[in-house]
């Protein structure tokens, strides 16, 4: 009887444990798959939280332009500025789904670095001086620090580029999402309540690009997290480096900087969500994990909580270097992205390359290289996240080329 009871209880416990484990596994293994982008409530970066400029009016009705640019981030705005500097009088229209600086531009740390994630391929050796020169020439007020580490307020940098583009004759429409891109000559862009036709289109939406049906097998969004502490005592700040870049197992890499008003800003991580999902705004585990990363590297910061946190997708490619590609049968849709977290400086320079392409110039050959075609879902979700996890665990490092 005792033996029977013991066996019965063991089985029951076993079944109960299995049921709990199964439900837990299903939730944590696949819960994110069920989320829809429509349910996404985007958060605001620290830079935007310091004061957001009113967005420009959305486009309504039908319009034609010489050049249409989709995306009001650093790439699109830099392209507009450089195109107009070379061709004054060009009719340039920029369409931004949310507001200028909403995407990876305004969510970045604002730290400038030459080169790309993987090295310093031709044309990227001078991206930092390029940005500093642009800021000086256009008179952009973006709290640029030149030394010891070049860094700026990325949101205000984007606003400065927007105002410069508008000053040169561009029209920036915010809050108008492009729903379809119809190939042809001209290309037709349609959204809620507007149609825009242009003979040339630049798609400068980086991680959001696959959702437009462009570069779906080449670009993917990887969500990263960032946070900023409150103002810190001087004696704590003294021991924190001006620019933080920590590569350890346990985090893919942690980057950071000293932010205005004696704060420390850190960011880390990369997560890919099913079907190029954009819905992620963090979960209960994310920011405690980021705080642990920060405290592990800088124990003096362990007792200082984050005051503001945010997330956002950065555009990535399989080989972690940016690309320029041509889409559409007529070859008049050009896309660019995949900076893998190096977009402020590299995106500014990419805008210069894109503007040159409008005049028949060629960008650096490596940016036009073929890249590994990412598989469709669910293999993409599995493969991309497996590689990210291996890199996070320090079990795999992608070889850099210099």
């Amino acid at each position, binding site marked *: 009887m005792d033996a029977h009871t013991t066996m019965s209880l063991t089985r029951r416990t*076993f079944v109960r444990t299995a049921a709990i*484990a*199964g439900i837990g*596994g299903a939730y944590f293994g696949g819960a994110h798959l069920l989320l829809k982008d429509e349910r996404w409530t985007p958060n605001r970066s620290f830079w935007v939280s310091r004061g957001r400029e009113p967005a420009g009016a959305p486009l309504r009705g039908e319009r034609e332009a010489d050049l249409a640019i989709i995306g009001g981030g650093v790439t699109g705005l830099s392209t507009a500025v450089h195109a107009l500097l070379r061709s004054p009088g060009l009719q340039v229209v920029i369409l931004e789904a949310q507001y200028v600086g909403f995407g990876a531009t305004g969510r970045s740390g604002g730290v400038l670095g030459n080169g790309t994630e993987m090295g310093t391929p031709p044309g990227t050796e001078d991206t930092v001086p390029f940005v500093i020169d642009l800021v000086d020439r256009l008179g952009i007020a973006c709290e640029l620090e030149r030394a010891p580490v070049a860094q700026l307020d990325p949101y205000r940098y984007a606003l400065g580029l927007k105002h410069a583009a508008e000053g040169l004759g561009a029209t920036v429409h915010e809050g108008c999402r492009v729903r379809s891109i119809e190939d042809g000559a001209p290309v037709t862009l349609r959204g809620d309540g507007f149609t825009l036709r242009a003979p040339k289109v630049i798609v400068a939406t980086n991680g959001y690009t696959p959702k437009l049906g462009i570069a779906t097998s080449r670009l993917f969004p990887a969500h990263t997290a960032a946070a900023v502490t409150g103002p810190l005592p001087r004696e704590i700040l003294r021991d924190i480096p001006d620019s933080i870049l920590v590569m350890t197992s346990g*985090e893919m890499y942690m980057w950071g900087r000293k932010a205005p008003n004696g704060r420390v800003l850190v960011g880390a991580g990369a997560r890919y969500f099913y079907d190029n999902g954009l819905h992620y705004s963090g979960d209960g*585990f994310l920011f405690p994990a980021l705080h642990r990363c920060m405290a592990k590297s800088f124990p003096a910061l362990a007792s200082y909580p984050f005051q503001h946190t945010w997330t956002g997708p950065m555009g990535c490619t399989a080989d972690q270097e940016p690309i320029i590609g041509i889409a559409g049968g007529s070859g008049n849709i050009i896309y660019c992205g995949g900076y893998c977290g190096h977009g402020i400086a590299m995106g500014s320079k990419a805008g210069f390359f894109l503007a040159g392409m409008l005049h028949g110039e060629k960008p650096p050959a490596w940016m036009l290289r073929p890249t590994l075609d990412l598989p469709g879902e669910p293999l993409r979700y599995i493969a991309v996240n497996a590689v990210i*996890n291996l890199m996070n*665990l320090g*079990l795999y490092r992608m070889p850099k080329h210099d």
Partner: protein
Amino acid sequence: MTDGAPPADVRPAVPPGARAASRWARALGVLSVVVFFVPLVAPLVQAGTLVYVLFAAWHGWLDRTSVIVGAGGSALGFVLFFATQYIWIV
């Protein structure tokens, strides 16, 4: 030998297929740990392993070691998966 009592070293008969079931349970337990870093696949393998071990153990096909390796591997794999996704890394 002639009084009808069974010989002392006779063990209960192993059910048909029990050896194969034990091998499967152990292999799945190990696989559950090996694939811990692969999202989507890991929880499916781990849940599948647990269900298989439960089913096979219920029918008496598994020895104690196979149950421990199968169910333990499934649980350990899930803990590693969970930690990788949510605790260790950002």
